[in-house]
């Protein structure tokens, strides 16, 4: 299949180099997708960024054991549904090191997504901006439809409910 010796060698070498670079790139990328610091005013910014697009904001925390169990299921759903616009928000009451948030998302297969992390110890204020009635329990999932209406799923989300919601967004 190879027409001559020299070009195939070159291609083999290039492929090896490419593979190496891709590995470095992948690692670099995983590290690079650091969560954006979620501070006062960030909720409005996040909403504006996704305005008019049905969006799922999943609130989780490094200090929340059920959250860590749930995360890989969101990665599965993301693979299954190309129409899932998922944003992750680490809402630990005490801000966590961004590198650890990133490590956990990477381990759960969610490192390529838009991600934010609480970066202010005045968490009452951050929570109030998202939902005044939210007292901080995690996990929590916000389904935001095209016109900004929010459906809240407290606790570990029933992904069947999320799928049904996604289906409804399509027909509208």
């Amino acid at each position, binding site marked *: 299949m190879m027409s001559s010796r020299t*070009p195939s060698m*070159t291609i083999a070498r*290039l492929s090896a*180099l*490419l593979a190496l*670079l*891709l590995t*470095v*790139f992948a690692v*670099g*990328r995983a*590290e*690079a997708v*650091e969560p954006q*610091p979620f501070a006062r005013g960030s909720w409005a910014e996040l909403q504006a960024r996704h305005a008019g697009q049905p969006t799922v904001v999943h609130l989780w925390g490094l*200090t*929340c*054991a*059920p*959250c860590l169990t749930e995360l890989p299921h969101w990665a599965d759903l993301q693979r299954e549904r190309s129409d899932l616009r998922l944003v992750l928000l680490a809402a*630990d*009451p*005490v*801000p*966590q*090191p*961004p*590198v*650890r948030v990133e490590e956990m998302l990477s381990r759960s297969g969610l490192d390529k997504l838009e991600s934010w992390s609480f*970066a*202010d*110890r*005045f*968490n*009452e*204020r951050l*929570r*109030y901006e998202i939902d*005044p*009635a*939210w*007292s*901080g*329990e*995690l*996990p929590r999932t916000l389904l935001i439809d095209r016109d900004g209406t929010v459906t809240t799923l*407290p*606790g*570990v989300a029933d992904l069947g409910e999320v799928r049904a919601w996604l289906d409804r967004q399509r027909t509208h």
Partner: protein
Amino acid sequence: MRPSKMPSLLAFLVVLLMACAATAQHHQHGKPGAAPEAFTATPAFGPDGTLWLARATADRITVEKSTDLGKTFSEPVSVTPEPMNLDWGPDARVRIAADPKGGLIVTFAIFQDKNFNGRAFFSRSLDKGASFTPPRPITADTTSQRFETVAVDPSSGRVFAAWLDKRNGPKARATGKPYPGAALAYAWEDGDGAFGKTEIALDNTCECCRLGVAFAGPGRPAVVFRNIFPGSVRDHAVVTFKDPATPGPLRRVSTDDWKIEACPHHGPSIAIAPDGSYHVAWFTDAPSRKGLFYARADNGDVPFGAPRALSSPNRQPARPYLLSDGQALHLVWKEFDGNKSVVHWQLSRDSGRHWSDTRTVAETADASDHPLLVAHDGHAYLSWLTKNEGYRLIPLEDR
């Protein structure tokens, strides 16, 4: 075909290299990954009216004292000789208690690992706070202890410690049984220097909420905690000891039916009045009952009365704290009004049957610790550490 393909491949590699360099640089110059830090201050009055304040700041514990009701403080004395990985959880705090002889005991917990397994320590001062003994673990078991709480039995001066302990979890799981939560563990101080044998009062309590302790009589602590009832319902219960070695039956404070497979990080508070009545305040987020609630019981045997709501749930009511001081019962909690955190106060002079209107006693526009109550010589005070104002001891005047 091939000659034209090669340069494009090379160009692609160059782009890749640049992308790598860019991401590496972004990473290098990103925000520093600061570790979370403990930020708590806990007060205790000594028998002579000295206010002792134990503080957890970043990775160390210190104690300072004030002889002018918190206006000025002494230089802090170190309890932790080395930096320690303090438990910075939102319901964890350093604790301090003064015994009737003026001795002090300080307790705190550290994280042993990245999975939030804790280790509880205590330290003693027998020289009026001039120095503290090197911290020692409260118990020999190394599985995990958190939310340790100490209280001095007023009748004997003996120190009682209770905490949430995970030692029974691995044992149960090894035999194939599930073990939700943690155990309520306790120990009594044995002399001035050590705690006696650890006992388990109860298994399967919620593992992530602070405990409350009050005394029902000599050698009879009462502990309030968030329990795990069947179906992962995380409601509150009280256990009152019949004697120092015999925890009594579990008494449910209220049936909120908050079913949640998660950690609320939000524990209760208890006070027992001189007439023997029990008073508990707690947080719940059940579908039918959300926010902060208070309930009372005439004594240690009868059921608790109907819960009374303290606040509207959309003001983030949090961290209730109760104190019995003579004939007065004080109750404080924290709310957020959209801009500021405020501490609200209610007072009862008839054993919790009737309460005063809610009064705001302090506020802050940034992060804050839990509001706590402390009393000496017939006067009660709010003790509150806030990021902006620092530490404040605020008299609760019955205006």
